[in-house]
């Protein structure tokens, strides 16, 4: 949607214009649904998150003053709804302690030689064409802890900046970068395993 149209819609929505609210919802519902579905992998939960997000939007749109982008503001509501769906168990480790870089760093050989790292970036293009890769990637992303997964989804799948992601999740920019890096390194390792198996067979 062109920014000037969006601005008009937001202003009308803030003034209580129901038709404008509905149009605003229509222009974002697909994107929010895709995000919710990727985060929770469950159609029922995604539907709840979607409804919660837009009800939240209607309730608080008067407080939206345009200090951040509308999308950032909306995704903050959606992100909260997603994370609320999966409450952290008492004994689960904090996200900062999960996926430590030391554990994720490729190990040197026992003789101190550098680890062998395959460059599968070309294989990835071929696997993508064959339509096999998306499923592998989604499965790898799903194995991330939710607080780390959401950072990868917002940054790399949805394409938000580190600053926008930090604002949505109420995290510092360095915390976003740290989670993103660990998430990418983890997914990269999972994909490496996949390509290694592919080469063997």
């Amino acid at each position, binding site marked *: 949607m062109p920014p000037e149209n969006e601005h008009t819609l937001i202003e009308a929505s803030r003034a209580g214009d129901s038709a404008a609210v509905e149009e605003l919802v229509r222009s974002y519902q697909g994107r929010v649904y895709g995000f919710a579905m990727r985060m929770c992998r469950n159609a029922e939960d995604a539907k709840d998150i979607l409804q919660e997000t837009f009800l939240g939007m209607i309730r608080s749109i008067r407080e939206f003053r345009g200090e951040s982008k509308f999308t950032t503001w909306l995704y903050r509501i959606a992100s909260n709804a997603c994370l609320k769906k999966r409450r952290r168990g008492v004994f689960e480790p904090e996200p900062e302690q999960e996926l430590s870089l030391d554990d994720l760093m490729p190990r040197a050989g026992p003789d101190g030689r550098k680890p062998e790292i395959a460059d599968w*970036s070309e294989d990835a293009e071929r696997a993508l064409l064959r339509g096999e890769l998306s499923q592998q990637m989604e499965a790898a992303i799903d194995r991330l802890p939710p607080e780390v997964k959401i950072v990868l989804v917002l940054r790399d799948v949805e394409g938000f900046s580190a600053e926008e992601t930090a604002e949505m999740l109420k995290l510092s920019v360095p915390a976003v970068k740290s989670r993103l890096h660990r998430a990418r390194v983890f997914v*990269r390792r999972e994909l490496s395993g996949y390509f290694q198996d592919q080469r063997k067979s």
Partner: protein
Amino acid sequence: MTCRDLFERLSEYVDGELSQEICEEIQRHMEGCEPCVAFAKTLKKTAELCRRLPSRPIPPEVAADLRGVLVTHLSKRK
């Protein structure tokens, strides 16, 4: 710069968030370190692949339900 130092900053590197000075240090390290080159290439590829993942479209009945919930809410507000 060690492999470990480089490994820690690789996402910032592929995202273009580091100073020119550090980028040059990383490039110098990579000239003599094949594993780090392969790691950097595949990490960058991982991020690119995420951007290309297809999203599930919203089913018409989910959109209809949403509209129903919102219309009810909006009419109560008046």
